[in-house]
């Protein structure tokens, strides 16, 4: 497997472990379906529907995938199982938005932006703070100077939580008291990072449900204040999605994109039984690439997303 060669063995195992269930429940089921059949028929497509739906791919995207497959099948009535697998792989890959990060071997950021500012957003409990801790660790390991900003000033002990991660990753953190203005924390963070000559700034924000207008507006304000220090900040608005979330993730992506122009996704908790299939539709509909996947609670449990590898791992 050439594609995976740049992953250390350990890392690869972890990913496989995380994706195993996805693979098992999606593709081994599918394999069972088509076993003993030499061609794709309606029953196979019906079962494909079940497989995709139960992976949270969603009705709309599932219909889309199936229609595309049907089209190809109608051209070649005697399509076999292995061809179906290939087609499926191609169709799913195609739906995942192009990720310019893909060519990078490891965690890094564009060098022409200094500091490169990442604002992390998402609903409550998806894994924003944890992802920040892991990402800071990886970037620092690659020789980048990282500064964290504790702009979740709302949730009880959120600041302390990020602080512990900053210690684990051994990077500085800028914070104020609980209850202070998140925009002000972001401002301080960017200012300090600029003075320190930091390469990357990662700003944590409080979890918020995307239907709360005033909380969503607050994110806009945080963004604006950042721009007082770094005019084109944030360069990256990273929306964190929980793999166990169902179709609501689409609404989350929509609303967060409206409020903050999300341009990257992180998919967390892929080490669980949830399949995270909704990310396919999210990526397709909003043309936002998945950049990172979370595969555990440990500091090493973050990986750069690579769609070829992602889809490939599903089939292995």
């Amino acid at each position, binding site marked *: 497997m050439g594609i995976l060669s740049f992953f250390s063995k350990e890392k690869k195992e972890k990913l496989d472990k995380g994706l195993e269930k996805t693979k098992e429940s999606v593709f081994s089921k599918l394999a069972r379906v088509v076993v003993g059949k030499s061609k794709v028929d309606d029953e196979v497509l019906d079962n494909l529907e079940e497989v995709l739906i139960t992976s949270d791919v969603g009705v709309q995207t599932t219909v889309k995938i199936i229609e595309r497959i049907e089209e190809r099948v109608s051209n070649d009535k005697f399509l076999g199982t292995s061809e179906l697998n290939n087609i499926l792989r191609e169709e799913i890959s195609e739906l995942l938005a192009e990720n310019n990060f893909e060519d990078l071997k490891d965690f890094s950021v564009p060098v022409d932006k200094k500091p490169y500012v990442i604002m992390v957003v998402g609903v409550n*409990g998806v894994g924003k703070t944890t992802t920040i801790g892991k990402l800071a660790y990886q970037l620092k390991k690659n020789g980048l100077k990282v500064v964290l900003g504790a702009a979740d000033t709302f949730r009880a002990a959120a600041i302390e*939580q990020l602080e512990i991660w900053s210690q684990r990753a051994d990077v500085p953190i800028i914070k104020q008291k609980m209850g202070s203005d998140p925009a002000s924390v972001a401002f301080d963070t960017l200012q300090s990072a600029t003075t320190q000559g930091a390469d990357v700034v990662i700003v944590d924000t409080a979890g918020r449900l995307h239907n*709360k207008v005033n909380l969503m507006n607050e994110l806009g304000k945080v963004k604006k204040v950042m721009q007082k220090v770094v005019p084109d900040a944030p360069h990256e608005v990273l929306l964190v999605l*929980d793999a166990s979330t*169902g*179709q609501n993730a689409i609404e989350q992506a929509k609303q967060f994109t409206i409020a903050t122009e999300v341009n990257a996704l992180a998919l967390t908790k892929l080490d669980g039984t949830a399949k995270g299939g909704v990310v396919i539709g999210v990526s397709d509909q909003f043309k936002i690439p998945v950049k990172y996947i979370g595969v555990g609670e440990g500091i090493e449990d973050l990986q750069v997303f690579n769609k070829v590898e992602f889809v490939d791992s599903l089939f292995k």
Partner: protein
Amino acid sequence: MFENLSDKLDKAFSVLKGHGKITEINVAETLKEVRRALLDADVSYKIAKDFTKKVKEKAIGQDVLTTLKPGQLMVKLVKDELTELMGTQVEGLNLEEKISVILIAGLQGSGKTTFTGKLALFLKNKKSKNPLLVACDVYRPAAINQLEILAEQVGVEVFTNRESQDPVAIAKAALEHAKQNGHNVVIVDTAGRLAIDEQMMNEIAAVKAVVNPQETLFVVDSMTGQDAVNTAKAFNDRLDYDGVVLTKLDGDTRGGAALTIKSVVNKPIKFVGTGEKMDALDVFYPDRMAERILGMGDVVSLVEKAQEQFDTEKARKLQKRIAKNEFDFNDFVEQIGQVKKMGNVKDLMGMIPGMGKAMKGVEIEDDAFKYVEAIISSMTKQERSNPSLLNGSRRQRVARGSGRSVSEVNQLIKQFNDMSKVMKMMQGGGMKNMMKMMGKGGMPNMPLGK
């Protein structure tokens, strides 16, 4: 909260309109829509399938009586079926023991700690209990701090031991502490864990064995997708929990997980979380939820909520004032305070039949009343108690003082006058009558917009 699903079903049922009898043919399209709506709502694939099958069996062959149109009949069938799926009983907590122990379990990020705080507040205020919270999440950074802060917010004691990495030992010590300090409820918060994490599942099973809880509650995020089946079942296999807590229902998730879980593990949903504030906790009423899914509104719980918050003594006084035509801006501010106490304004509106749909896209912010209050607080004492004093120049002054435009001030005064009239019309029934009226769709022109 299930607006989208009810929209879908509305659409589905409208397909039936114009047909006088339910047949295999005219029901097919509807059922397809119902099934799709359920899947879009994250109801498990299998359950959605079974569900539509059941509805179909019940629908077909039914002679549509003159009183019901086929669409209405289908609404009823679907609603009955949904209700059945979600359980038909309201079940409370078992707190009979001298020290009742409640064990909280669930995935990472599902909202366990927040719920622990809310439950403590609920038991303290509504059940006159003296709860002890126990911090057994020794893994997540600052999890203990989080519980400590929440405990302080709700005014209950919390038991922690930062030296220990052993949740079983902590739980055991906490029980002893509760005995010695006169606590009658112990709520054990635990770390989030994956159902496939053997070691962690063993750990919580061990905690359960040592604290012997009266209630083990499984906390699950209402946004959960198809995985709800697996996780709910896996936790149940290990813990045989007594009830489910559905969190983050103040979001716009369709909440199909609620339907799934109930029917998979057959355990009641005992609470729902509806916000980040410590009082944003509700009891789960399956039948009302089914009505809500179908957009029939939840008038009953709205009225109850209003009654609970409403101070009857003040109400009597207010009635008198309205009757005597003395309703003024002071009363108005107080009324706003009442409404605010009842919780998120949008939640309230969502409970009113027909409003769910009407309110879609309309955003009412939690602080929708802020500008109203700003304007009123810029009035003088005399102006507040005698609104007719507010002539043009006074209005201009008020506008300047509150930082709002004159036309906003004018609009508010007009709304105030309309409201006074409505209240007089209701013969001074106050909030309660107003709510009833709102329930009937005769919404007075409340100043809720931006």
